[in-house]
């Protein structure tokens, strides 16, 4: 099809892009559009961060205090009262290093699952690739959790654990919970617009996952027979990498690691498909 050129001199040789509006929607991943709209992605991310940190001092403080309080409670109950073994590491440090990757998973899941519902006012009025919403939300969560990670590193230093160069691998390790959370979030985001009940189901699932991951206890306490299944949990691996990088705990990579990684990747790619296919309906069914 020939392209037209507007006669005005300002647009002298600009080719017009063609937008086709029709009912068929493809099964694409939608990543090309995200790239085309990368500038908006940056703006959305900046908006998320600016809004959150606008009341600066307090915002950051709470973000640090909240997990610290949680760690304090866990330390008192599980470390002092129940005396759960922590493989010889100081219990607060042990819990914190498990909690950070889990926290990242929980936040990223919450915000990516809720992204369509929360931004309904926007997406029912303005068109842009909806995938920008979960991506920008999850990146914002990653920034938040990085602040926690810095606190964790400080805490390790006060206990005399000097993290080695392995710490530099942690950003990549953080991709595991991020992708796992986004995969689930993308699967559920469109449904959640209408079926808010799902929200509770997700909450329960997250709770189960928390106790199904070696955060407050040592994986050595898990029965050996269960171990092959227990290790399929991607959070297990993120925690294992965190403790290896920060505390110098031994890391044994089993085939389950690769299976769990493959699962995470499959989940996020299928999530992209599902999200792309169904997000357009969410405006109509809200």
């Amino acid at each position, binding site marked *: 099809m020939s392209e037209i050129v507007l006669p005005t001199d300002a*647009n002298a040789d600009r080719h017009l892009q063609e937008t086709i509006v029709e009912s068929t929607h493809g099964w694409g991943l939608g990543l090309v559009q995200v790239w085309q709209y990368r500038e908006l992605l940056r703006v959305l991310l900046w908006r998320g961060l600016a809004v959150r940190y606008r009341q600066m001092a307090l915002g950051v403080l709470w973000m640090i205090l909240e997990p610290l309080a949680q760690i304090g409670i866990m330390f008192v109950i599980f470390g002092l009262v129940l005396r759960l073994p922590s493989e010889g590491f100081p219990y607060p440090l042990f819990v914190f290093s498990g909690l950070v990757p889990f926290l990242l998973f929980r936040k990223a899941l919450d915000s990516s699952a809720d992204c369509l519902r929360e931004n309904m006012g926007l997406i029912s009025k303005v068109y842009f690739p909806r995938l920008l919403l979960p991506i920008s939300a999850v990146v914002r969560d990653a920034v938040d959790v990085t602040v926690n990670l810095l606190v964790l590193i400080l805490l390790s230093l006060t206990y005399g654990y000097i993290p080695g160069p392995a710490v530099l691998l942690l950003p990549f390790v953080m991709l595991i919970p991020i992708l796992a959370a986004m995969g689930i979030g993308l699967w559920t985001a469109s449904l959640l617009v209408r079926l808010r009940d799902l929200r509770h189901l997700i909450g329960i699932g997250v709770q189960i996952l928390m106790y199904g991951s070696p955060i407050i206890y040592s994986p050595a306490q898990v029965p050996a027979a269960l171990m092959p299944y227990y290790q399929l949990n991607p959070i297990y691996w993120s925690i294992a990498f965190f403790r290896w990088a920060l505390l110098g705990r031994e890391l044994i990579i089993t085939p389950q690691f690769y299976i769990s990684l493959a699962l995470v990747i499959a989940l996020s790619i299928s999530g992209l498909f599902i999200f792309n296919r169904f997000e357009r309906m969410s405006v109509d069914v809200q």
Partner: protein
Amino acid sequence: MSQPSVSVTGLGKSYRLPHRGAGQFRAHLKEFFGLMVDENDVFWALREIDLELAPGDIIGILGKNGSGKSTFLKLLSGVTAPTTGRAVLRGRIGSLLEVGAGFHPDLTGRENILMNGSLLGMAQQEIRSRLDEIIDFAGIEPFIDVPVKRYSSGMYVRLAYAVASHLDTDILILDEVLAVGDAEFRMKSLDNMERIARGGRTILFVSHSPQSVTNLCSTGMVLSAGRQVFLGSAREASTHYMQLVHRIGETGSTDIAQMPALVDIREREGFDRARPEPVLTSIETLRMDGTSTRQFRTGEGMRIRIGYRTTLMPAPYFTVFFLDTNGNRVMTLYSTHSSHLASIRDRGFVECVIPELRIYGEEFSIMVECGLISRQLESVDCVPNATNVRIELDDYLGAAGLVSNQGVVAQRSAWAIV
């Protein structure tokens, strides 16, 4: 001949109604996966729209609430997908479906401009280069670094419109934007839109105001119940819309003089909303001597008797509108012009007496409204085209009278050489 910038063929949008059938859950499934679709569950918000626009066209889309105007713009802007048909838009698209959509209350005016601009498809660099222009247009320089949550609603809206109207897009989609701001700002917006269109860009805009469509647009489209009932020149579209709104011409071609002058209006449809509890029950036009008729002569009197039914209306007002066949208001009679009416209850009649008719025409449509006087006039019930009357000029202006197309007002005058 250049290609059209917008071409729409057979565009339609249907929604599934979730309320019918058994079970919430099944209904949800239906909506999402299109399972078990039953024709009765489908509601067509928009059906079979065809439209072609060339670069530089401005089209005004008129229609009553729920006629599918906004759905049409939503489809074109890509917010939601059509069920049938197809639209091809050539060029960059900017859309403003809601003033200030995407504004964040905690961000400052300047930040929101940058943010909103890129939401609407502008590059950051473009926005920055136009920042001063936008701020100037909105007229909010002193407040530009204040969070918009502290803005007055007028400032908010001006800022939002300023961003959208400075979009350098080939196609601009606007919903009800002219309804915002004060008169001065509206003028500025109109000028701006004209300037945009002269630059070879295509504008589609939805409006409730046939006047702005006539003033601004080259083309007009009228939607009613999701269908395209008129497409043509802006002026004709406005007339068509006015007739539609006032339900003029629905009585058909019967000679109005032959029709009974007492009309039951309990079951009539409302002007701009439904009438669950109609207050206005009947209307009757009478001569001064009490003869019930629809045929009058200029210069004689008219009594309009309105029947009501209500539990209690403490401070009521009634209004009678006379409209010509194009839907233009010719004359409006408010009960508040004379004196306040006492409270009304139960059933009864209100009578409006015109001592001497000053207008003439083959057919006038009468719209009747009633409401409450509180701080302002609060409309309670309104029936368009409740009845229609003929007012003949007869010999009011002497034997010569007037030829056709000399207005609707008959004014006597004395002439002399002085």
